[in-house]
C-alpha cells in the first residue's frame, strides 16, 4: 500500500495532465445588482451587463441597461464584449 501511494504521489508530481475543473466565478445578489446599476448610471461604476438569454426573451423583457448576447449564438454577438479584457462583465 505504501509503495502504491508513493508511486501515485510521484506520478502526480511528474506527470501533469489537464484537469477539467468547475469554473468558479464571483456571484452578486439582486440587491447588489440594483446598487451597481444605480452606481453606473451616476458614473460611479463601469461594467457591461450581458443578457445571455435568447433574443426573443431579451426583446420581451430585460434588465434595463443590458446588452443581448444569446448563448445560443454567442460567437455571432461576442464582439459586443469589447476589447478591454479587464472590464467587469456581468452575465445573467
Amino acid at each position, binding site marked *: 500500500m505504501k509503495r502504491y501511494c508513493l508511486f501515485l504521489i510521484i506520478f502526480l508530481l511528474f506527470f501533469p495532465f489537464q484537469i477539467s475543473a468547475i469554473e468558479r466565478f*464571483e456571484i452578486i445578489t*439582486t440587491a447588489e445588482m*440594483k446598487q451597481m446599476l444605480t452606481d453606473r448610471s451616476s458614473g460611479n461604476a463601469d461594467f457591461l451587463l450581458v443578457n445571455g438569454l435568447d433574443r*426573443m426573451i431579451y426583446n420581451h423583457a430585460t434588465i*434595463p441597461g443590458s446588452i443581448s448576447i444569446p448563448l445560443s449564438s454567442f460567437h455571432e454577438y461576442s464582439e459586443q*464584449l469589447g476589447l478591454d479584457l479587464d472590464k467587469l462583465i456581468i452575465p445573467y
Partner: protein
Amino acid sequence: MAVAIKQTGHTNITIYNGGLKDWIKAGHKVSSVAPLPKVKVHFVNADELQTILQEADQRNCKDRKNNPLVTLIDFRMSPTLQAKMRADTYQIQTTCNTIKAQLDDFIDNRELIQSLPDMGQIISISETGNRDRFLVQYLSQFGKTNIRALKYGMRSWLKTGCPIERNSSLNN
C-alpha cells in the same frame, strides 16, 4: 455563459445568478423591445406525450386525410453547441415530424412559422420547459394556437424513462 465569456480572454467576470427571474420577482422594472402577448400555455407531461406519440406512431403519424397527427418542435440547444459542451445528443424517439430550430430562428421567419401545420397537435420541447411560454406566446401572434409544451422539458422525458434515440447525425 460566464465560461464562454472567459474563453474570449475576458478575466473580470461576476455572475448575476438570480437573473431576470429574480429581478422581476424583486419588483424591479424591465425594459422591453417587443413584448409578447399574454397567452395561457398548456402543458403535457412526459407520460401523456408518450401515450400521444405511441398512438400516433401506430398510425404512421397521419390521419385519414394525410394530415400530421403530431408535430414536435425541438428547440433545445443547438447540436453544435451541445457538442462544444460535450453534451450527449439525443431526441425523442418517434416517427412523427420533429422540427429542430432555435427559439430565435422563429423571429420574423414566416417560412419556418408557416411550416408548422394547422392540423394535429404540436408539442414544443425545450431543456426544462422554462422557455416554452415564449415560443407559444410568439407563435400565437401568427395564429398558431394549437401548441402545447412538454412540462419540465426533455429533463422530465429522460427522468420518466421515455424512449430516446441517440443520433450521431445530430452533430452534423
